[in-house]
């Protein structure tokens, strides 16, 4: 349903934008950049651009569904190839960044929750809030300046080896790390107050074992939800980081396409990013039911 709306909007981009829609579309469909008026007319008729809008939409949708997204205005390459390679880069970056964030947040959140109200808790919460408030277009350039230019430890941008991942992934991990920590802390506090934890302690389980067996496992659920949410977001939403570090991912692909008014690439990237977001969201919902039996019960009774 949503995907239909998104696809309609994406289809309409050439009609709503400036310039002759027919010409824009023809440039996308053929790989010939220069077209005379005669050629435009002939091709319009041939490709059915004089037909009603809905018929054109269905044609276009058929092409999209078969993987034919047209050709980029700027590079003359098929959009599907551009999107494919960019997606792979973005997935790699997002997975690494979120894993870092997750691994940092787990102990921090647990530590804060077990010291609730204490100095350690205050410090961790403050760090998490700072991380959340730090814009990556500020941390990024400063990090480049420090670690790439001054110290020369890491490359400042590009995408040609493991060393190129470190800096962008760390900067990118900062904000999700802050959110994950806060959610982990809140969830852990909830779990530690639950009856089954009291029961486990009463059974004689040590605090550490209780924490590991019940606490961490049960408080991971909300963090996992947030994880998938961020994963969907970072597939296309890491625009700023990808631009700063010249990483050829989805975000930068979309950004350069918007700047250059490269309509077919915009259409392809938007559809791909939003479709993936919906797919990941749905998958999370399903997974959530599997991981959390309580959810199923409450749904069944509702």
């Amino acid at each position, binding site marked *: 349903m949503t995907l239909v709306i998104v696809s309609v909007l994406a289809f309409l981009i050439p009609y709503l934008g400036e310039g002759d829609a027919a010409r824009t579309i023809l440039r996308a469909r053929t790989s010939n950049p220069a077209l005379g008026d005669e050629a435009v007319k002939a091709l319009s008729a041939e490709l059915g651009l004089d037909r009603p809008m809905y018929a054109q939409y269905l044609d276009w949708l058929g092409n999209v569904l078969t993987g034919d997204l047209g050709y980029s205005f700027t590079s003359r390459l098929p959009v599907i190839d551009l999107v494919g390679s960019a997606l792979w880069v973005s997935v790699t970056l997002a997975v690494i960044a979120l894993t870092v964030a997750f691994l940092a947040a787990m102990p921090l959140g647990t530590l804060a929750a077990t010291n609730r*109200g204490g100095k350690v808790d205050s410090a961790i919460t403050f760090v998490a809030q700072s991380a959340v408030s730090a814009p*990556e277009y500020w941390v990024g350039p400063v990090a480049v300046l420090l670690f790439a230019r001054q110290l020369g430890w890491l490359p400042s941008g590009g995408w040609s080896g493991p060393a190129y991942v470190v800096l962008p992934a760390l900067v990118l991990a900062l904000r999700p790390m802050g959110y994950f920590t806060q959610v982990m802390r809140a969830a852990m506090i909830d779990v530690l107050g639950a009856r089954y934890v009291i029961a486990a302690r009463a059974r004689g389980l040590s605090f550490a074992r209780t924490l590991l067996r019940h606490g961490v496992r049960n408080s991971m659920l909300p963090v996992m939800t947030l994880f998938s949410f961020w994963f969907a977001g*970072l597939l296309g939403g890491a625009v700023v980081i990808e631009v700063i570090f010249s990483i050829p991912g989805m975000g930068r692909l979309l950004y350069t396409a918007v700047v250059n008014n490269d309509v077919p690439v915009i259409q392809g990237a938007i559809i791909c990013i939003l479709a993936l*977001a919906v797919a990941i969201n749905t998958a999370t919902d399903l997974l959530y039911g599997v991981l959390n039996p309580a959810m199923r019960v409450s749904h069944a009774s509702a």
Partner: protein
Amino acid sequence: MPRRRPRPVTAEHPRAQAAEVATPAAPAAPADSPTARASPRAGLFDSVRGGFRSPPWTLAVGAGALAAVVVILLLTPWIAPHDPAFQELSQRLAGPSGDHWAGTDHLGRDVLSRLMYGGRFSVTIAAATLVLCAVIGIVLGALAAGRGGILDELLMRGVDVLTCFPDVVVALFLIAIFGTGYGTLVAALTITGWTPFARLMRGLALEIKSKEYIEAAEVLGCPRWFIVFRHIVPNALRPVLAMSFLRFGHKLITVGALSYLGLGVQPPDSDWGAMLLDAQPYMERLPWLGVLPGLAIFVTALSVTLIGQGLENRKLPRRRPDAGHAEPASAEAPLKGAGP
């Protein structure tokens, strides 16, 4: 009652407190909440006070910093040392001096004045967007909870889907269609931004709806809209306010991000994000050109986050697991930040 005890949100409805503590059969009844167990002073008002307290200094520091920022930005036309657009090309990229406290940028413009004027754009756009998001979210959320049925189902489906759209991508989408501009900027951030409010409001409304004073109002024959706007909205105010502060920082950062990409605030106007963009080529020689506007965003965002967290920690009735829209932890909804 000592002054520093937070005023119960349900002040107009004293019975609400009684109702809250008098229903131990409810899923998340006070006896089950972590505070009741952890605090030796767990008493009748514990559920009203909210769970734990955030260290009070965070709220104070946040409020102080935000007040300072707001006052400076309000007074900018009178206290700014220079015209932010005045170019003094002989003074390009100068370091801090008596005349230019924060130095000058690549066109010889006074950085401090530009920071102050730029902040007005950043904060105003973020605030305008936030108000729009909050109003739309509150109205739709309350409607969903009040009407229920198909409307509820459809609205919350929409919320689910919109929530998972990265906001920068939606903004780029709209910019591709309509071009850059303040309207596009605010619209883009509103489309993705109202959903957390709707989700929160719906959860709160459903919970409040189950209270006895609502039943009383219904028995008295109050019309539905009256109950929604007289009882549910005022009672939900504090959590919504907390959420607003928490979301404000995120909005500010996103506005800055779009400006940094050159797609937000357009010249001759300039905001903190655009200043960072301008500073980019000179970062190596003159780091403070980029550090200062970033710091401004960071400090402002952090102060609102601290305030929001302070409010959130004292917030009223913990939402029950079944009251929200498939929302597991109460702390999660406000923290659901979108992708960067």
